[in-house]
C-alpha cells in the first residue's frame, strides 16, 4: 500500500480539489488571519527601531524626559496592537484549521457509514483510526501552522529584510543573512533525517511492545518449558535495539537546537565585526548597529519556519493521500437504479437458486439454496459451524450483495427494495451480540431512538432480561462494556434480542441468539416470541433443537447446501443429520440432569 501512495505523491497538497473547496469556504477567515498576522509582524519590527532611536538620543544626552515618555507610550500602544493581533490570527488561522479538521473527520465518518462489510473485513479499525487521527492531524498541520508559517515567513522575512536593507545597510544585511540561510537548509535536512530516525525508533518500540505482548500471552509455554532465563535474554536484545534506535534519534535531535544557535551566533559575530567596522567608518549610526543586531535575531525564526513549512507540507501531502483514499472508496452497497416504489414491506421471503461466494474468494459458501416462507411463518435453520447459516441471513440484510433474481421479499427483488426500508423492517440479533458502550436503555432503544421507557421495558421483559437489569445499581442507566458493567454472554444476548424486538419488525432474525441462555429462559423467550409476533415472520438459527423445534419449517444446512427440510416431526422421522443431532442433544440433557 505504501508503494501505491508513494507513486502518487506528485500531486501537491494545495492541488487537491477537496482541500481547495475548504480553502474557498473559509477564505474570509484566512484573509482576516493573514491581515492581522501582517499587522503584528509590522508592529513587531517597529519595536527595535524605536528602542534603537531612543538609545541614540540618550547617547547624545540631548533629550527631554517628555521624549522618553512619548517613546514609552508608543511602545505600550504597539504592544497592545500586537496583543490583539496575535489573538486574532491564532483564532482565524489555527481556529479555521481546527474547523476544517472537524469537517474532514465528519466527512470520513459519514463515508464509512456507507461502506460494506467487505470494506471492514479488509480494513481493520486500527488502520481506519490511524487515518482519522494521525493522518488527519498531519493534514490539519498544513491548514493551520503550515499556512501560518508560510505567510509568516514571507511577511516577517520580507519586512525585516526590507528594514535591514533600506534603513540600515544592504551589504551588512547580506553578511548577516547568508549564514542564516543555513538554518533553513539544515532544518529541512535534519527534519527529514529526524523523521526517518523517529520512524525507526517507533518501529523498534512497536517491536518491543509486540515482543512483550507475545511472550506474556505465551507465558504458559515459557513456564512449562522453563524458558524464563532465555526469554529474558531475548527481551534484552529487544531493549538493546530500542536503546540504540533511541540514541540514534537523540543524536540528531540534540544537534538541532545547538546547531541553530550556532548559526545565529555566527551571524551575530559577523554582524558585530562588520557592523562595528562600518559604524566606525560612519556608514551607519550606533542606533542602526543595535537595531541591526535585534533584527538579526528576528530573522532566526523565519529561517527555522521555512524549513518547518517544507516539512509540514511534505508530510501533509502524504497523509492527505491516505485521507482521500477513504473518502474516494466507492460505495458498494447502495440503492439500485430501478428502485421499487414501495413504502411498506411484508415478511414473505423466497430464495431461488442462490449461490454465493464472498468477494475475492473462491470458496462457494452457499450452493443452490431454494426455500420459501410466508408472512407470519417461522423458519428454523440448523447446521454445523461453517455450514453457511449466518451467511444466508446477512445476505437478506444486504450486508453483502447477491445476484439479481435470487432473493425476493414481499415479492420484490431484494436488490430493488430501498435499503433503508429493508433494514428498518428487519430486526436482527447477530451472533456476536455486539453492544455499544452506552447505557442499557440506549442499547435497547438503539434502532428506535425515541426514549420511550415503557416500550424499552416491554422489550426487555419479552426477552427476559428486565429482572437482571433492575438488579443493577443503576438499572436501565447502567453503562455496559469496558467502562461499565461487564455483562455475561447470556445477558448480552438477551439485551441484543430486546434491541431487535423493540423495532417490532416485519422480519426478525435470531442468529444463534439464545446459545448462552439456560433452557428455562429460552423457553420463556420463545413463548413471548410466539405471542408477540403473530402475523410477523421469524428466522431462527440455532444449534439446539429445542430452539427451533416448533418452527413452521426447518432447513438443515451442511457445507452450504440444504440437505434436509421440513417440520420437526418430519425431520426426526427421516433419520438423517437432523435426527442424529437430536439424539445427541437428548443424551446431553440426560447427562446434565445427572446428579
Amino acid at each position, binding site marked *: 500500500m505504501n508503494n501505491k501512495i508513494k507513486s502518487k505523491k506528485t500531486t501537491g497538497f494545495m492541488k487537491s480539489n477537496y482541500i481547495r473547496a475548504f480553502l474557498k469556504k473559509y477564505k474570509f477567515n484566512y484573509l482576516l488571519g493573514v491581515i492581522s498576522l501582517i499587522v503584528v509582524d509590522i508592529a513587531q519590527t517597529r519595536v527595535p527601531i524605536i528602542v534603537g532611536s531612543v538609545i541614540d538620543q540618550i547617547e547624545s544626552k540631548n533629550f527631554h524626559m517628555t521624549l522618553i515618555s512619548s517613546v514609552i507610550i508608543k511602545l505600550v500602544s504597539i504592544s497592545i496592537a500586537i*496583543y490583539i493581533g496575535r489573538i486574532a490570527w491564532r483564532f482565524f488561522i489555527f481556529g479555521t484549521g481546527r474547523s476544517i479538521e472537524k469537517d474532514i473527520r465528519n466527512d470520513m465518518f459519514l463515508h464509512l457509514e456507507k461502506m460494506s462489510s467487505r470494506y471492514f473485513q479488509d480494513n481493520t479499525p486500527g488502520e481506519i483510526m490511524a487515518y482519522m487521527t494521525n493522518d488527519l492531524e498531519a493534514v490539519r498541520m498544513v491548514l493551520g501552522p503550515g499556512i501560518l508559517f508560510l505567510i509568516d515567513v514571507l511577511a516577517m522575512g520580507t519586512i525585516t529584510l526590507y528594514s535591514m536593507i533600506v534603513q540600515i545597510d544592504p551589504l551588512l544585511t547580506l553578511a548577516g543573512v547568508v549564514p542564516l540561510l543555513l538554518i533553513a537548509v539544515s532544518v529541512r535536512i535534519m527534519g527529514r533525517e529526524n523523521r526517518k530516525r523517529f520512524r525507526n525508533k517507533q518501529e523498534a518500540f512497536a517491536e518491543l511492545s509486540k515482543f512483550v505482548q507475545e511472550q506474556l500471552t505465551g507465558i504458559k509455554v515459557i513456564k512449562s518449558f522453563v524458558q524464563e532465563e532465555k526469554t529474558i535474554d531475548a527481551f534484552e536484545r529487544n531493549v538493546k535495539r530500542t536503546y540504540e534506535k533511541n540514541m540514534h534519534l537523540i543524536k540528531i535531535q540534540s544537534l538541532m537546537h545547538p546547531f541553530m544557535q550556532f548559526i545565529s551566533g555566527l551571524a551575530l559575530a559577523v554582524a558585530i565585526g562588520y557592523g562595528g567596522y562600518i559604524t566606525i567608518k560612519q556608514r551607519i549610526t550606533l542606533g542602526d548597529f543595535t537595531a541591526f543586531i535585534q533584527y538579526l535575531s528576528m530573522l532566526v525564526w523565519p529561517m527555522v519556519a521555512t524549513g518547518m513549512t517544507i516539512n509540514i507540507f511534505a508530510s501533509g501531502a502524504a497523509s492527505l493521500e491516505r485521507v482521500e483514499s477513504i473518502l474516494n472508496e466507492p460505495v458498494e452497497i447502495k440503492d439500485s437504479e430501478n428502485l421499487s416504489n414501495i413504502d411498506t414491506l411484508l415478511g414473505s421471503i423466497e430464495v431461488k437458486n442462490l449461490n454465493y461466494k464472498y468477494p475475492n474468494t473462491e470458496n462457494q459458501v452457499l450452493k443452490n439454496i431454494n426455500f420459501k416462507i410466508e408472512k407470519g411463518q417461522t423458519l428454523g435453520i440448523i447446521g454445523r459451524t461453517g455450514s453457511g447459516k449466518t451467511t444466508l441471513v446477512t445476505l437478506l440484510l444486504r450486508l453483502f450483495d447477491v445476484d439479481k433474481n435470487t432473493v425476493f421479499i414481499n415479492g420484490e427483488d431484494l436488490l430493488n427494495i430501498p435499503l433503508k426500508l429493508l433494514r428498518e423492517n428487519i430486526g436482527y440479533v*447477530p451472533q456476536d451480540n*455486539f453492544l455499544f458502550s452506552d447505557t442499557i436503555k440506549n442499547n435497547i432503544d438503539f434502532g428506535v431512538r425515541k426514549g420511550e421507557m415503557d416500550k424499552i421495558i416491554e422489550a426487555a421483559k419479552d426477552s427476559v432480561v428486565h429482572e437482571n437489569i433492575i438488579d443493577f445499581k443503576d438499572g436501565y442507566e447502567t453503562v455496559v462494556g469496558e467502562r461499565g458493567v461487564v455483562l455475561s454472554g447470556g445477558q448480552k444476548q438477551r439485551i441484543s434480542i430486546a434491541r431487535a424486538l423493540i423495532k417490532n419488525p416485519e422480519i426478525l432474525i435470531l442468529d444463534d441468539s439464545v446459545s448462552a441462555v439456560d433452557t428455562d429462559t429460552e423457553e420463556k423467550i420463545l413463548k413471548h416470541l410466539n405471542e408477540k409476533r403473530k402475523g410477523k415472520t421469524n428466522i431462527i438459527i440455532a444449534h439446539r433443537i429445542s430452539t427451533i423445534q416448533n418452527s413452521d419449517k426447518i432447513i438443515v444446512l451442511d457445507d452450504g447446501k440444504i440437505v434436509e427440510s421440513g417440520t420437526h416431526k418430519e425431520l426426526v422421522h427421516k433419520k438423517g443429520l437432523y435426527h442424529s443431532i437430536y439424539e445427541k442433544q437428548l443424551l446431553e440433557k440426560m447427562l446434565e440432569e445427572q446428579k
Partner: protein
Amino acid sequence: MIKKNFKNNKKYGNTSYIRLLNYAKPHTMKFIFAILIILFIVVIELYQPVLIGDVVDKFLVHYGIAESNIDTNLNNSNIIGVVKIALVYFASVVAIFLLSYAQAIILSRTGQKIIYNIRMELFNHLIKLPINFFTNNPIGKLVTRVTNDTEALNEMYTSVIVNILKSIFVLLGIVITMITYNFKLSLLTFTVIPFIVIFTFTFEKISKKIHRQIRNKISSINAFISEHVSGMRIVQVFAVEKEIFDKFDNENENLRKEHMKQLFTFSIYNPTNFVLNITAVSILIWFGSKMVLEGTITVGTIVIFQRYISKFFEPIQELAEQLNIVQSAMAASERIFGILDEEPEIKEDSNSIELKSFKGKIEFKNVWFSYKENEWILKDVSFKVNPGENVAFVGATGAGKTTIQNLICRYYDIQKGEILIDDINIKDISLTSLRKNIGQMLQDVFLFSGNVKSNIRLLNENITDEEIIESSKYVNADNFISKLSEVYDTHVIENGAAFSAGQRQLISFARTLVFKPDILILDEATANIDTETEVLIQDALKKLMKGRTTLIVAHRLSTVQNSDKIIVMHKGEIREEGNHQELLSQKGIYYKLYKLQYEQAL
C-alpha cells in the same frame, strides 16, 4: 478483580522519588559532569551580552551621531577592537555549540541506560509472576508498564534533574550580573519578575488541565471510531446512520471546542509575555535614561540590560515545565513499582531438591483446590499413576481435568492434600527441575513469531537442527514441514495463524519431544482436524506415549481406548476409574459419554 490488582498501588508518595533517584545513583559522576558543563555554558551565555555592550561602550560610543571627526588612528584601533570582540564572540558560540551537544548526549545516554535497567528489572520480575497474575491482569496493560511507562521516566533523568539546576543557575546568574552593573536599575527592572513567575505557573497549570481534557476527548473520539467501525454492521442493519453521525458530530465538536480553548489560552500566553517584556523595557528606558542624564550609568548598560530582560523568561518557563514532567513521571513510576512490588505467589523452598530425571510415578492424595475461595474445583481427589502408565481423563467441560494438569506442573498451589512425584511432594522439588522433566502440551498450541525451527527449539540454542528434524520426523511433523517453501526456516507469523490446528499440534509434539521429558501431560485438541492429519497425530501420540507416564485429557475414542486407565471426572470429583471395558460394563457416566461422543464416529 482486575481493578483490585491495580488499586494495590497504594500511595507511594515520597518513596517513589527516592526509588527513582536510586536508579540514578550509579551515574552520579555523569550527572555532576553534565551539571559542570551546564554551569560553563551558563557563564558563557551570560558573558555574550557583555561582549556586545563592550563593543558599544568601548569602541562605538563616539560614533553615535555622524558628525564628529575622529582621527584615523583611533579609528583603526577601534576597528581592531571590534574585530577582536567579534572573534571572541564567535569562539563563545563555538564553545556553547560543542558543550551543549556533549551535555545533551551524556545525559541522554545516561537516561536511556537507566530506562534500560528499569525495563530489564521489570520484565525479569514480571516473567516470574504466577500464571494467575496474567489471567487477572490484561496483557495490554502489562505491556504498557514495560514500554510506555518506562519511557515516560526518560525525561525525568535526561532533562528534569539537570534543567532545574540549570534554570536556577541562569536566573541567579542574570540577577547577579545585573546587580553588579547597577543595583538600583536592577531592582527596578526586577519588579516584573514576580508577575512573570505568577503568570507562567498559572498558565502551565491551566494548559496542563486543558491538555488533559484534550487527551480525554481524543481518546473518547478514538473509542467512538473504533467501536463504531467494529459495530458498523449493527449501525447499518438498524439503519441509524444519521443518528450515529449526529453523535459523532457532537463528539467531534466537543474536541474542536476543547482545541479552541487551548488555542485561546496559548494566544494569550505569548502576547502577555511580550507585554511584560515591553513593560520591563519601558521601565528600563524611563529610569535608565534618567540615570544616563545624571551620569550614573552608560548607554552600554541599557543595551546590556535590555538583552538580559528577554532572558528572564526562559528559565522561569523551563522550571514550570520541569515540574510538570516530574508529576507525570511520578504517576508512571507508581504504576511500575506496583508491579515490582507484586509478590510471586509460588515460593520455592530454599532447600528444594534438584532432580535430573523422574521415574514417572504420580500420586494425588486427597487434593482440594479452588481458584476462588469456597468454589472448589477439585474435591478430595486421589489417584495413583505408575511409571510408564498412560491415563486418560474424561468428563464434561469444567469437570476439573485441565486443573489437574496445571497442578502437577505447579502453576497453582493446592489448598489441602498432597501431590507426589516419585513419592516426593512437588513443593520440595525445584520448580525448574519439575517443569523441565514434564512435557506439557496445551490444547491451543501457542506459536511464537519466528520460524518453524525456533518454535520447536524455543530459545534453547544448544538443541541442534539435526535433533529438531529427527524429532519432527518421529512425530510425523516433517511430512508437512518439508513441503513448506522454506522448510524449517519458514516464517511463522504471530500466533502461527497460517498453520492449521493439526499442523500446530504436530509442531507442538516436536517441541515437546525435543526437550525429552519423562512425564507427558497433554490436552487433546478438539478442533476439527482433517482425517489425513488426524491419522498422523494419532500415530505420533502413540509413539510419544510409549514408555512414558502420560496424563491426557482425551477427546478421541482411540486415545481413550488405548489408555491403561481411564479416570472419569464429574464436577470436581473422580466418579469412575478403570479401563474401557470395565467402565462400559458399569453403565455409568462413562457409558453415556461414550455413546454421546463416540458412537457417531463408529
